[in-house]
């Protein structure tokens, strides 16, 4: 199946990156069939990993951002940032925390919370790499299609 040429404007690239962040694996879908298949695997695994984390009562927790506060811990802040790379599952988890929606929110006193949150952390970190990979592949594809177009025009 022939794939469509990818527009190279900054706005479209930003939109693609935003979509790739919001839905893990989506950034690979406009690419060639092989990478599309890989994108589906990436997306499926990232969603599954985050779901396992939620099932273990883990999730995204809003950290303390005030360095003067005694409860401030920079590890928690970095964990939060990396977890947020997981896209919509992380947003749902954070929203559930603020809304007090018990089935999806993180339960900090629970014994499995740390392990579950680590699953969410890994899911976020993996989605970061998947977003970068999709952007890299898109850039290569755009450059290749531009080279072909230039070659056609010159001949």
């Amino acid at each position: 199946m022939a794939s469509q040429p990818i527009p190279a404007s900054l706005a479209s690239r930003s939109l693609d990156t935003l979509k790739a962040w919001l839905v893990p694996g989506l950034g690979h879908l406009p690419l060639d069939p092989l990478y599309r298949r890989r994108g589906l695997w990436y997306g499926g695994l990232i969603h599954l990993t985050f779901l396992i984390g939620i099932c273990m009562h883990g999730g995204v927790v809003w950290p303390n951002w005030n360095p003067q506060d005694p409860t401030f811990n920079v590890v928690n802040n970095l964990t939060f940032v990396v977890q947020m790379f997981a896209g919509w599952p992380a947003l749902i988890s954070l929203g559930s925390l603020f809304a007090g929606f018990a089935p999806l929110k993180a339960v900090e006193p629970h014994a499995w919370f740390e392990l579950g949150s680590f699953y969410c952390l890994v899911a976020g970190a993996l989605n970061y790499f998947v977003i970068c990979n999709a952007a890299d592949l898109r850039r290569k594809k755009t450059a290749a299609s531009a080279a072909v177009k230039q070659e056609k025009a010159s001949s």
Partner: protein
Amino acid sequence: MNWFGLAHIFSLIYLTGIVAFVIGLQEVPEDKSADTQDGAAQPNPLNSPATRHVLGCWGKMLGSLVGLGLIVYILSLFSN
């Protein structure tokens, strides 16, 4: 049954597995032989360069972590 301990062992295997899958697969270039011509024999996906690379990454990561755990355990035997 110690479910908490079992969950940690499962996590070690599962999390290293998906990290090896996602990061390892990105290191393997596009395999054009996957889209073979008509009539040609289909390549075995279980023996493709991508599969071997991912399994290698997984083995190295799991081996390193288990080895590290073993070293920490042996050192802990000498602590007071």
